[in-house]
């Protein structure tokens, strides 16, 4: 099966609600067939607007949206054949589970037998067989969520949109639902566009993640790359935890640069800096810095422990390092030999390739 890499295409899309502020700016985004793509960003970043434009509830102010090569900007929502899971499920409260699932099939004039079969299949997919006659109000939040997913999939749409579908669930349920949705996606191979502001959800589920901020896609890449190699300081800040140093590039050569901080210098990996004298923010993941480094790491410093917080599987250590008292370390709790005490001095080291010199904050 040849997959269309431009199954859904946002082509230079602008969107403004009031004619003054652009909510979405010059969006260029291709989504491949069968892909699970997540739009991630803080609230007001334009991600839900993009979803609504794709679903047909908002029209782009400028530019086109293409679905399988066809411009869909002028097609009304009910003719687009796109399934959607809404934030608060939007199950029809006056219909049973069966009727909710049969709704998209009935409006498509599917035969009764066929409807029964498809509803059955969709319900067993979300492991809710036997719930046909329940009303939505008689279901728990997680069950309602499954019904909403089943309803969006029951008519075999080419694309399914999910607008923060797990936002109302508690943490444990949310995690198990993440895996469930991921597995459903894998088993039926539908294209999913998922919107969330929860980065761990995005990292768990997606093939690719588009990080939105300020109406623009900041970075579009797979979860590992997004976490390991953020291209700017917004992405570095937004995804995962992050130690930052603000400074100025004093030397740059090949794949290393020297950054001058307030009263010291560190080596870093130049990502968005090009020349000497540029201001930069250096970003380092907490788990990339090691205590008592044995290897030859090109950044080695001594810091003072300010605070030790026990987190079960790991311990977070806040250090005063290089003039900043907000330096965070994550120490796995398997190394029981480590004695960490407040106001103790420890040696810290990291590789310059992990310290990414990004645009200044």
């Amino acid at each position, binding site marked *: 099966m040849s997959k269309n890499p431009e199954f859904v295409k946002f082509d230079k899309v602008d969107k403004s609600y009031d004619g003054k502020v652009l909510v979405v700016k010059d969006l260029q985004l291709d989504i491949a067939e069968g892909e699970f793509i997540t739009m991630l960003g803080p609230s007001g970043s334009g991600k839900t607007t993009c979803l609504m434009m794709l679903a047909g*509830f908002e029209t782009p102010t400028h530019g086109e949206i293409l679905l399988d090569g066809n411009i869909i900007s002028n097609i*009304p*929502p*009910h003719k687009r054949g796109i399934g*959607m899971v809404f934030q608060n499920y*939007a199950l029809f409260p006056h219909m049973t589970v069966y009727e909710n699932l049969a709704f998209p099939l009935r409006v498509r004039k599917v035969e009764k037998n066929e409807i029964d079969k498809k509803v059955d299949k969709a319900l067993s997919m979300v492991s809710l067989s036997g719930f046909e006659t329940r009303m939505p109000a008689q279901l728990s939040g997680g069950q309602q969520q499954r019904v909403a997913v089943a*309803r*969006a999939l029951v008519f075999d749409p080419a694309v399914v*949109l999910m607008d923060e579908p797990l936002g109302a669930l508690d943490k444990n349920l949310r995690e198990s639902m993440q895996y469930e949705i991921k597995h459903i996606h894998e088993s039926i191979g539908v294209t999913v566009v998922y919107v969330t502001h929860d980065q761990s959800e995005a990292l768990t589920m997606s093939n690719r993640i588009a990080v939105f901020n300020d109406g623009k896609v900041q970075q579009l890449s797979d979860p590992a790359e997004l976490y390991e190699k953020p291209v700017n300081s917004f992405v570095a800040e937004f995804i995962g935890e992050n130690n930052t140093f603000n400074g100025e590039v004093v030397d740059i050569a090949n794949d290393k640069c020297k950054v001058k901080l307030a009263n010291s210098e560190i080596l870093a990996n130049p990502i968005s800096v090009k020349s000497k004298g540029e201001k930069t923010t250096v970003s380092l993941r907490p788990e990339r810095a090691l205590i008592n480094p044995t290897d030859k790491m090109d950044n080695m410093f001594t810091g003072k422990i300010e605070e030790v917080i026990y987190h079960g599987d790991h311990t977070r250590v806040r250090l005063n390092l290089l003039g900043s008292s907000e330096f965070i370390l994550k120490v796995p709790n398997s190394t029981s030999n480590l004695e960490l005490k407040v106001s103790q001095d420890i040696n810290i080291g990291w590789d310059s390739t992990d310290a990414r010199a990004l645009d200044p904050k």
Partner: protein
Amino acid sequence: MSSETKQILTTDGIPLEVSLKKAEKKNKIKAFLLVAPLLLFLIITYVFPIGEMFSRSIDDKMITNMLPKTFKEMEKWDGQELPSEEVFTAFYYDFKVLVEKQEHGKLGQRLNKEKNGFNSITKKLFRQVKRKKIDESTSIKKQIMKVHKRWRNVEYWQAIKRTAPPYTMSKYLKGMDMYYAADGSIAQVEEDRRIHRILWLRTLEIAFFVTLFCFLMGYPIAHLLATLPMKYSNLLMICVLLPFWTSLLVRTASWMILLQQQGVVNDFFVMIGLVADDNRPEMMYNKVGTYVAMTQILLPFMVLPLYSVMKTISPSLMRAGKSLGGTPFVAFWKVYFPLTIPGIGAGCLLVFILAIGYYITPALVGGASGTLISNQIAFHMKQTLDWSFASAMGLMLLSGVLVIYWIYNKLVGVDNIKLG
């Protein structure tokens, strides 16, 4: 463990149940005292007047009290032939008492309503009794029969017997254009005199159409109110509520200014050439006027319950309907509309019940063909002073409303009503 349940005691040794009751008793008394004024108010202004109305509407004790001995003797009478000597004697003594109290005239009037011709024969009998012409030592029956030939007619005695029960449904029958015939069966009024049935039907018809018009106009307004951004919807809400802030009389009067033949609406129609100047349509003092004015006045009662229900319907439901492939109409009809039924029920019930008992507006703009049953009730209260008939019709109206409520409850369920 012993099989008997142990009584749980508080630390003071009092059984827990007793202690709980004691603690709750105070709260119960407090709660009752708080609602007591309202309860009293309701009893005085609602329960008591309705009871009073009811007893007045079926009350027929006047003759029962006037002729106690007669009715006692009549119990033995079969009602087929002229009553016995005892009945006549008892009637004579009853009548004598009335003559002394000067109440014989009332008896004549009341009996005359039952059967024409009583007035004159009681007057004749009165003169005989007054002049003491009746000899109490011989047969009183023969003497009374001599007073007038009608006293010899069994139909008149049957009429007296019919008034014996202290209670009567005759007022209710009259409200439905029926009456008790001479033989005690229920008969219909002649066709050209059936005014009440026409009024009942017209009341139902006008209430139904006013409800329909209110619904047709109120639904889109309520939808707009529920979906517009706050700053516009507030303004619209004020427009909807504006009629509430104006006196009912003023509003009705302004409709009179608008709708009369030389009024604003007619002037406008003439101006745009819709009607000829010498052929202005009558829009007032007929049903049209009643429809227009009542629809406008009752519209808020439809809009408000609809609005409160629509406000709670998430806009994502309509979107879901559309995204699942329903056309906007299907999404509306299958998803949105069923969810507004509680509001529709509440609004329609409210408007219909208010419309069915509406008085001032039809009285002012309704003319002869646009008046309702309540106007008839008012007529009997103020003009004919037949309060018992007015009460009977009022109660018929009330029970009609209760029947509608009951039907609604059976069809839709009262739990589904949402007033706000």
